[in-house]
């Protein structure tokens, strides 16, 4: 009898260990793991941008098409850019470049790989996104890059390589902050957001919200949105948040069009800033407080004569119409 009791206690002890660890792991899974879509997965690729939706010269692509007065046939500049601007520069290619100018490794588009595309090296359209795109424009493998303002590291990278880059503003966009749709906060001031990211405010109730820890989320350094956020923060230093903040209620930042149209996730909502919602109208009339320009960027020493031709066309009514119809705001 005594031996059986001891055995029972021993089995209970072992079972308890397993149960406790299982509960810990289940909690971590529910609070964090379940919400992580790694960039290597198809799920996350689709969340960044579904390249296949924006392939030029494909009748099923979701691109703006106009009766372009400019048609280039040779010396085609290689176009590349940020995820959020893929629908714009893919439309430029579609409207101006001849069929056959966009090619793929193996002859056919595939996103079943690390970067979610397989543009061939000789393709006149590429998709390297911001970080690799800035390297490509400096290294000379891309002729025109469509991106938001560069980070200080990207400016320095060009300087270190003795390369002067030209930045031509071609459109406008709102830099926005977003939260989960169930978060009761709808509006924050710029000062409140800076205090959230400097970790002076650590709980949503300090800004009129629920009693939950704030998880201020940042992005990959060098990405367009992180560079815009660094500019927004100005001299305010980022704070060091508690590792447990990740289980709280998050706030993130991005560009309006990317949030609204490219990703289009209905479970998040954009916040008004200083009482102004980031609508297209409020960008056009300059009432939204944080408006970012995006650029056509090229090397000053690039002698391809079609670069100024294409950029002039982008700044013309035709190019600006493509930008506007895609969902951005024209520069002029």
């Amino acid at each position, binding site marked *: 009898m005594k031996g059986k009791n001891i055995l029972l206690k021993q089995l209970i002890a072992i079972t308890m260990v397993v149960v406790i660890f299982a509960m810990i792991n289940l909690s971590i899974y529910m609070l964090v793991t379940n919400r992580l879509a790694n960039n290597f997965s198809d799920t996350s690729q689709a969340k960044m941008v579904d390249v296949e939706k924006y392939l030029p010269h494909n009748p099923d692509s979701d691109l703006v098409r106009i009766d372009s007065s400019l048609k280039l046939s040779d010396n085609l500049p290689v176009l590349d850019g940020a995820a959020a601007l893929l629908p714009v520069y893919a439309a430029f290619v579609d409207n101006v470049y001849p069929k056959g100018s966009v090619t793929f490794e193996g002859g056919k588009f595939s996103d079943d790989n690390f970067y979610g595309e397989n543009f061939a090296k000789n393709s006149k359209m590429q998709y390297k996104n911001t970080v690799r795109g800035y390297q490509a424009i400096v290294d000379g493998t891309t002729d025109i890059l469509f991106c938001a303002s560069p980070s200080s590291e990207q400016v320095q990278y060009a300087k270190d390589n003795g390369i002067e880059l030209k930045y031509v503003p071609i459109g406008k966009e709102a830099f926005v902050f977003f939260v*989960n749709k169930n978060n009761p906060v709808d509006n924050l001031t710029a000062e409140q957001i800076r205090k959230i990211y400097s970790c002076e405010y650590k709980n949503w109730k300090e800004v009129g919200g629920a009693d939950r820890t704030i998880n201020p989320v940042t992005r990959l350094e060098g990405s367009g949105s992180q560079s815009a956020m660094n500019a927004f923060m100005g001299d305010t230093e980022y704070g060091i948040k508690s590792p447990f903040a990740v289980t709280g209620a998050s*706030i993130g930042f991005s560009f309006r069009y990317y949030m609204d149209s490219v990703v289009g996730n209905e479970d998040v909502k954009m916040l008004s800033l200083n009482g102004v919602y980031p609508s297209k109208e409020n960008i056009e009339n300059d009432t939204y407080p944080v408006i970012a320009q995006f650029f056509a960027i090229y090397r000053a020493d690039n002698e391809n004569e079609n670069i100024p031709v294409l950029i002039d066309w982008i700044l013309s009514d035709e190019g600006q119409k493509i930008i506007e119809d895609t969902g951005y705001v024209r520069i002029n």
Partner: protein
Amino acid sequence: MKPKTFNIIFFTVLALCAVFTIAHFIYDVNAYQHCSIIYFIAKELW
């Protein structure tokens, strides 16, 4: 079971659970740095 046998089984199970939890934690830290923030916030529990 004998105390020695129990100790071996108990600490083996404990070690395996701890290793699994640490691996889970390391995966999360790594995946968090590369994840889609919009997706992460969209799936927040409220």
